[in-house]
């Protein structure tokens, strides 16, 4: 805030000062990374922990000396995130440059080999690309379905009507379910012998209906279950946007004899665009991680294998930690590019409008 003036000058990068947090980060990173390479994991852990504490201390001292309350306010969150999230992430990033299997106690630096392996190896790369393609398919299908269904549901609830509150909570319930229970019950609904889907279709065709014996059916089954669970999330965000449109704008539009289509794009849509973007962002991130429903419904059969499920097999079942880390960082790269693209488009639209 402009009202707060720094009382301590900003130190140069290599000036040894208790509040020189830049130097602290630099030293901390170097020491931590070196210790991870050179020392047994336990020692490396404590050294990295100490380095994190040092950086944190430098931040706090810096903030305190400069009356920089922003830093003090942010510090606890950064500390928790660093210890519980960023540090393990960096650790696994480091592992992606080694040949390491978690069930064997040898480790060897191999540089970018893991990355070239997962991206170009004649046996592994095609499988990875196929899984990635499937994932992309699921991302597009589930997110589109969620956006459409969520949007339509929101339109339905945008008006005030009797009992609305009670009907709304019914629609919100699916996203509160545990994925395990939802997945298991959907496998029951889709079951050709016991399932309700088969039962109802049979009333018309007289034949048991096998949904998941082909790719289209299996994908449809998974997309349906996922969209069912998470459309309420989109609905909630869109609905919040819809109810936030001031009523007088619609009145003005009525007076101005604006057509329904134009009214939506000129008045309503600007209010929900930001929220739609947020929903799109979070749902896309989640869709990239889709594995649970696939495991519960098809085990990846009939062309439904996703990169995330593949990753679970690699990193968990087969303990190929480094290879898994490499795959996941390739994945992360794609997600970051994609989300930045979203954010870029969203910002450009906002500025352009």
């Amino acid at each position: 805030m402009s009202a707060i003036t720094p009382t301590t000058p900003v130190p140069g990068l290599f000036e040894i000062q208790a509040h020189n947090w830049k130097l602290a980060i630099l030293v901390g990173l170097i020491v931590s990374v070196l210790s991870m390479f050179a020392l047994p994991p336990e020692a490396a852990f404590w050294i990295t922990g100490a380095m994190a504490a040092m950086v944190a201390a430098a931040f706090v001292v810096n903030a305190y000396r400069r009356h920089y309350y922003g830093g003090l306010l942010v510090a606890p969150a950064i500390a928790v995130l660093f210890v519980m999230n960023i540090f393990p992430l960096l650790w696994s990033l480091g592992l992606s440059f080694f040949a390491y299997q978690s069930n064997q106690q040898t480790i060897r630096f191999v540089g970018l080999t893991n990355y070239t392996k997962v991206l170009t190896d004649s046996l592994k790369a095609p499988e990875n690309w196929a899984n990635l393609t499937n994932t992309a398919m699921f991302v597009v299908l589930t997110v589109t379905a969620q956006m459409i269904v969520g949007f339509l549901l929101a339109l339905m609830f945008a008006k005030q009507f009797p009992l609305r509150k009670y009907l709304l909570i019914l629609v919100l319930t699916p996203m509160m379910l545990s994925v395990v229970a939802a997945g298991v019950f959907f496998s029951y609904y889709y079951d050709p012998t016991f399932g309700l889907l088969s039962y109802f279709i049979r009333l018309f065709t007289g034949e048991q209906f096998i949904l998941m014996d082909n790719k289209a059916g299996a994908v449809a089954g998974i997309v349906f279950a996922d969209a069912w669970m998470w459309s309420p999330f989109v609905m909630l965000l869109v609905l919040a946007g819809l109810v936030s449109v001031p009523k007088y704008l619609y009145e003005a539009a009525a007076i101005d004899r604006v057509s329904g289509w134009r009214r939506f794009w000129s008045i309503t849509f600007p209010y929900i665009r930001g929220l739609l973007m947020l929903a799109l962002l979070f749902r896309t991130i989640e869709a990239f991680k889709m594995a649970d429903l696939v495991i519960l419904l098809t085990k990846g059969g009939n062309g439904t294998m996703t990169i995330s499920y593949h990753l679970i097999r690699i990193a968990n079942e087969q303990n190929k930690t480094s290879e898994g880390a490499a795959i996941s960082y390739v994945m992360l790269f794609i997600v970051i590019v994609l989300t930045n693209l979203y954010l870029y488009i969203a910002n450009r639209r906002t500025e352009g409008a």
Partner: protein
Amino acid sequence: MSKATSIWEKLGFRKASGVSEAGWGQTLFAGIISLIYFLPVLLIIITSFKLQTEALSIPPKFMPTNLFGLIPDAYVFSPTLENYTSVFSRAMTSGGVAENTGFDRYFFNSIMIASVSVLLALVIGTLAAFGFSRYPLKGNDTYLFVILTTRMLPAIVVIIPIILMFRVTGLSGSYLGIIMLYTAFNLPFTIWMMKSFFDELSLDVEDAARLDGSSGLKVFFKICLPQVLAGLAATFVFGLILTWNEFLFALLLTGIDTRTVPVAMSQAVAGGGIGVLWGLLAAIETLFLIPVFFVTFFLQDHLLRGVTFGTVKR
């Protein structure tokens, strides 16, 4: 616009004025759609009152009563509460006596761990969001994006370092460990939501309060927080829903004393040398749904207001 709040208004029969008013016709339409949408959940709830031998019957038994002979018997099941008692106490060996299943503990753990960690994330995240909003750093957006990035990777990738870290620090199997982890898990979303709320607030009042000599903390607690209560409620509900059903970390980092319901739930999926115990699984899920259902229901109004407040730029 009658002044007194009648019982009808409390029940949601509020007459709103103006163009967005819709009547019972809309109720009927939305009711049908909502019920269809709710059907899979309803079937889970119905299953929770069925014995295992009736759970998979064809044609499906969906009525607990034959309504004085209106419904053919093929569709009628005999409702039982056995699944609900079995959640907490049942024989764990063939022919054995009923014993405690530990689910009372698991429910307690789930409620405790989820609520404490979401609240903690709310406290820490709100402070941070306020910091990010009022004391912008250079490259603020980058920091925020990095924070979001931590949610982008599948959890399985970071699990090995975290398990090791937990062992070294003795946090494995403790409440503290899993709570801290879930707190971190909730922070990105909390910070993103709360920052946008603070960004929306008008600075005039705060500046005035500062000029009057109020300290930063006082400004935060007395002026900013009350304005973002709806946002806090919305963030709490979202955080709760996401944390409530977390599975992988709970599986790997809790001990038998700190185990949460989603982990223990698999017991009914392929436990005990039987495939799925449909009634039992449904009963666990139904019980597990209740707390988060009611929290959401009671914070529903805030949920909508909160979300909007935070994200719509005008």
